[in-house]
């Protein structure tokens, strides 16, 4: 297997989508940042949370991170996944309350929101 694999899929209109699998990538936000943020002393957290251009193993994309400590599930929705929260659920980073996902292939200019489901 290659280091990272691509999935190619065809939608109902016959259009082919090809991208690396977001779920093939490990956690991206360093523990250092999580620790400082947990202490309330991360003075540059705006450079981390939100959506930022990011590169993993030479693959460019966007890393989305959001602080949602009471969420049961957080997804990133946007024009790249039909605003469908099923497509890109995020990873919870330990007890930091931060959720993240790296989506390869995205560029600046795409629209996104975070979809947050509250724990019951």
């Amino acid at each position: 297997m290659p280091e990272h694999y691509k999935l190619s899929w065809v939608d109902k209109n016959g259009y082919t989508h090809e991208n690396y699998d977001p779920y093939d990538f490990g956690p991206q936000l360093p523990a250092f940042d999580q620790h400082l943020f947990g202490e309330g002393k991360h003075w540059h957290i705006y450079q981390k949370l939100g959506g930022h251009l990011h590169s993993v193993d030479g693959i460019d994309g966007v890393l989305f991170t959001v602080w949602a400590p009471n969420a049961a599930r957080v997804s990133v929705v946007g024009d790249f996944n039909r605003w469908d929260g099923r497509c890109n659920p995020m990873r919870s980073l330990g007890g930091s309350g931060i959720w993240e996902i790296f989506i390869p292939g995205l560029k600046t200019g795409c629209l996104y929101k975070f979809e947050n489901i509250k724990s019951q």
Partner: protein
Amino acid sequence: MKKRSNNTLDSDATKTSAAKPEANTPDSESTKIMEEETASSTLDSNPKTSVKPKTEAKAAASDARKPEKAKTEVKVPASEPAKTIAAKKEENKLDPDSIKIIEAKHHDPFSVLGRHPKNNQILIKAYLPYAETVRLSNNGPVLNR
């Protein structure tokens, strides 16, 4: 139990497909799973291989009634590139984790989706609700709904 035969899409005659026993379609979920499983020649002795009925035509016929959701699992041997191995499709009973993924309620989707070892092979699971067919880009076999 509904089983599908191995779908050999590779020209490498030395490779054959292995089978996976469990197969079922939960109608209540109205969800079909596509699974692609590939195996190396080291698994040729797998006794399950010989009991697979050929139901590919049936699978194609049922594609017309497919629901919106689709989940694809691709399994490849750990030591082989996907393009050198054969493939098989089958319907598979959804495990609880997969159901949670489809309901978008799973607390740790990275533990289900993506690439994970399973039975000395690699299982790649992807949830692509809008996909009609899925394949690995490096000449992997095509999976239909």
